[in-house]
């Protein structure tokens, strides 16, 4: 339950970042370059307060015509006109000079409006325009302080916007005087795309989720997708206990033998391997097997459309359409063009909270990783996914492409290896001038397992078949395993020598 001391912004995701909302009576500075969504942010705050919280709001605009504001708001489905008629919202278009004079005059229009309408929320767009009165910093500081004191005195929760340059690192004096600072940004992700972000830089007297979060301007206004934060990532063994002793079948009998009887329920499995080694096929068999046995499955596909997934599954004898029609199999599809990893996380979260899923697949993490702005967050992202699935008792498989040159040892030592419960390596090997597929269980928490490199093949109409008896070329596969370990040892030795030489 949200305490009455918090004022909800009504912007989905923002109250989560602020752990409940804005402290009542606080003044928030919303900074950003043009096009980052500052005005929309303020309008949404005022509209939500007037419509849902019975908190009348005042908007003061120094630049944008109220008519334009209302037109833009209409595009989000916000009916400001009715609330203005009901005297729940008041918009004043003026210049900073008049605003300042009116503030100083106790019987001026501003004070009269605040009192007559019992205004509880104020949005001023933007305080950068105070520079039209003076550029003297002392005078500006006095003006801002006077405004903040008046708002505090009346316990009005306010949002002030401020224009700042994208890469501005220095602090403005307003940042020191306000209670909280929220920065909006629009940053290039690659040559073709820019993405919006939101970050709380300061919030006096309240906790908040640090770091940058994804912000989207959608058809109903701003929606923020907070960066997934794992509650706890333990690497010291405390988290290594299996969540359940119930084994579940993967849908590939040979693999279940390798795993000592199947996966533990709630496990998060990393399917890592070369492109074309069969990761997606294994993932589809896993989820289809579950759906056929009354375990509802969720399949997140990024590169392939749902239709492509269905057709590819048909080639290995899996009929997904009846499972979809019976609501046992759900697909979420995202295109690579506008991929937002945080949105994916929150979509999954909302879905698994609304329906009892037992199995989930994300195909693939390799498409998500480049879209995370900070590389360091990838481990947190995977950890948050694991915790999300585990908390709902969902067994999950996450596919991940690795370079052909990557040796298994590197995979075991990778940043996400400590996060997942099991790692299966699916590789393409050149065996006697033929490319063969192999599978290895590199990690399986809390369970004995087959640690050999096993040959596997994909048969039309049958899917993946894992040969656990070293069928075919046992001596070669054993030798391959030795070679792999030698390469890893050799690399380690080389790195040690290198560091000693330095």
């Amino acid at each position: 339950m949200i305490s009455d001391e918090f004022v909800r912004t009504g912007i989905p995701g923002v109250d989560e970042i602020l752990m409940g909302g804005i402290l009542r009576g606080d003044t928030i500075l919303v900074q950003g370059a043009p096009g980052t969504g500052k005005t929309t942010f303020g309008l949404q705050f005022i509209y939500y307060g007037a419509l849902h919280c019975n908190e009348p709001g005042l908007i003061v605009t120094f630049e944008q015509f109220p008519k334009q504001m209302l037109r833009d708001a209409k595009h989000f489905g916000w009916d400001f006109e009715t609330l203005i008629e009901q005297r729940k919202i008041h918009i004043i278009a003026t210049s900073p000079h008049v605003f300042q004079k009116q503030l100083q005059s106790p019987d001026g229009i501003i004070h009269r409006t605040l009192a007559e309408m019992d205004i509880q929320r104020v949005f001023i767009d933007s305080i950068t325009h105070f520079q039209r009165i003076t550029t003297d910093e002392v005078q500006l500081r006095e003006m801002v302080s006077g405004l903040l004191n008046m708002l505090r005195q009346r316990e009005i929760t306010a949002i002030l916007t401020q224009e700042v340059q994208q890469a501005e690192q220095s602090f403005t004096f307003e940042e020191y005087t306000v209670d909280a600072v929220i920065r909006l940004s629009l940053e290039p992700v690659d040559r073709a795309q820019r993405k919006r972000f939101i970050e709380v830089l300061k919030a006096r007297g309240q906790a908040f989720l640090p770091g940058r979060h994804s912000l989207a301007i959608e058809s109903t206004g701003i929606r923020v997708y907070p960066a997934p934060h794992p509650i706890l990532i333990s690497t010291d063994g405390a988290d290594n206990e299996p969540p359940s002793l119930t084994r579940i079948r993967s849908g590939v009998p040979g693999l279940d033998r390798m795993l000592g009887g199947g996966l533990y329920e709630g496990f998060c499995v990393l399917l890592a391997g070369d492109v074309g080694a069969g990761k997606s096929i294994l993932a589809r068999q896993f989820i289809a097997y579950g759906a056929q046995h009354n375990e509802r499955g969720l399949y997140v596909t990024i590169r392939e459309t749902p239709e492509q997934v269905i057709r590819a599954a048909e080639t290995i004898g899996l009929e997904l359409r009846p499972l979809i029609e019976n609501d046992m199999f759900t697909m979420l599809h995202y295109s690579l063009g506008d991929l937002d990893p945080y949105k994916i996380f929150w979509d999954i979260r909302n879905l698994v909270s609304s329906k009892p899923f037992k199995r989930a697949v994300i195909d693939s993490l390799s498409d998500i990783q480049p879209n995370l702005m900070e590389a360091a967050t990838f481990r947190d992202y995977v950890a948050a996914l694991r915790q999300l699935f585990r908390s709902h008792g969902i067994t999950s498989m996450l596919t991940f492409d690795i370079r052909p040159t990557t040796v298994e040892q590197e995979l075991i030592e990778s940043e996400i290896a400590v996060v997942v419960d099991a790692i299966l390596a699916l590789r393409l090997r050149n065996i006697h001038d033929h490319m063969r597929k192999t599978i290895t269980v590199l990690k399986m928490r809390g369970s004995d397992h087959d640690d050999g490199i096993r040959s596997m093949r994909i048969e039309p109409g049958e899917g993946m078949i894992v040969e656990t008896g070293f069928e075919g070329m046992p001596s070669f596969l054993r030798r391959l395993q030795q070679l792999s370990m030698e390469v890893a040892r050799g690399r380690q030795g080389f790195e040690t020598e290198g560091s000693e030489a330095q």
Partner: protein
Amino acid sequence: MDACKGKSAAQIALIADSIVKVELLLFFHSNPMAMDTARGLSMWLGMDMRAVEKAADELADAMVLKRYGEGEDAVYTLTDDPEVKRAVVEFVSTVLSSKEKRSAFLRRLLCEEAKGR
């Protein structure tokens, strides 16, 4: 001056005898809660400050606008009088309701201004 007390759109049309006054009426009609000085209004309209000040004063004298204070600090708002407000709405929605009507009205004003000169 009590030019438009109890009057209709026709009276407003007579009062709106310059382009700046028409622009001011349109601005306050679209943004009825606006309040600003002549300098501020000149920025909203993108017009010369002195011309805006003269037009705003004349509209205030005609009781279409309300003026608070004097000189450069005078602040203008739309009148509180509901009858005058209704007349402004009627004037804008009949005489200036479309781009074509607005252009025709402004052309007529320009001709009259030219004749006056």
